[in-house]
């Protein structure tokens, strides 16, 4: 079964450094997402992406964050200057469609654990 793949599985970085988290969505999916889960807290929506542009973003997704689909397969999340509070598990997801009352659930990758020291 096709799956969403994320690399690396664990990233350790120093505060203030830039990090890029990489994702390869399922090949026929058109909608891409980033979510994150801080340890012990809820999974939180960050951003959705369709047709090479952001379709929605949360208040968490400030100017320090950016997303890009640099080629036909990769979908990346960049954090420009990491803060301690950015430490979390970051999940990439993709879906065939928006899923309005249809069965188009999000398919998640296994996540990248980001540790900012």
């Amino acid at each position, binding site marked *: 079964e096709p799956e*969403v793949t*994320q690399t690396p599985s664990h990233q350790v970085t120093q505060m203030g450094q830039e990090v890029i988290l990489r994702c390869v969505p399922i090949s026929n999916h058109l*909608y891409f*997402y980033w*979510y994150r889960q801080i340890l012990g*807290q*809820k*999974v*939180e*929506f960050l951003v*959705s992406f369709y047709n090479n542009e952001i*379709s*929605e973003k*949360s208040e968490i997704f400030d100017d320090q964050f950016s997303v890009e689909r640099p080629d036909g397969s990769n979908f990346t999340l960049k954090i420009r200057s990491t803060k301690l509070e950015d430490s979390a598990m970051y*999940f990439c*997801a993709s*879906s065939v*469609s*928006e*899923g*309005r*009352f249809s*069965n*188009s*659930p*999000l*398919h*998640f*990758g*296994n*996540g990248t654990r980001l540790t900012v020291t």
Partner: protein
Amino acid sequence: DQQVKQNSPSLSVQEGRISILNCDYTNSMFDYFLWYKKYPAEGPTFLISISSIKDKNEDGRFTVFLNKSAKHLSLHIVPSQPGDSAVYFCAASASRAGNNRKLIWGLGTSLAVNP
């Protein structure tokens, strides 16, 4: 932000019995609800969903019930199997342009099915 609440952090059930996981929500704009299952070191996996026009959706051993007046939904697993042991997340969204864009998640319930 407690729009989606899963008040039981953990649940333990004997194999073969029914597992009932509960979820409450506060936002009356939510009209699409999903359950995801998560194993350690893996991402969430979609399990079952229900839209607000229904009050029940069934898929094999999994049934989701929605009580809109109570703003409550539940996931029933019957019979429970040891492989069902995982964290179960309830999530909800308010459809505007689409359901998937912004899911609001509960904290999860860790289910242990004992052989």
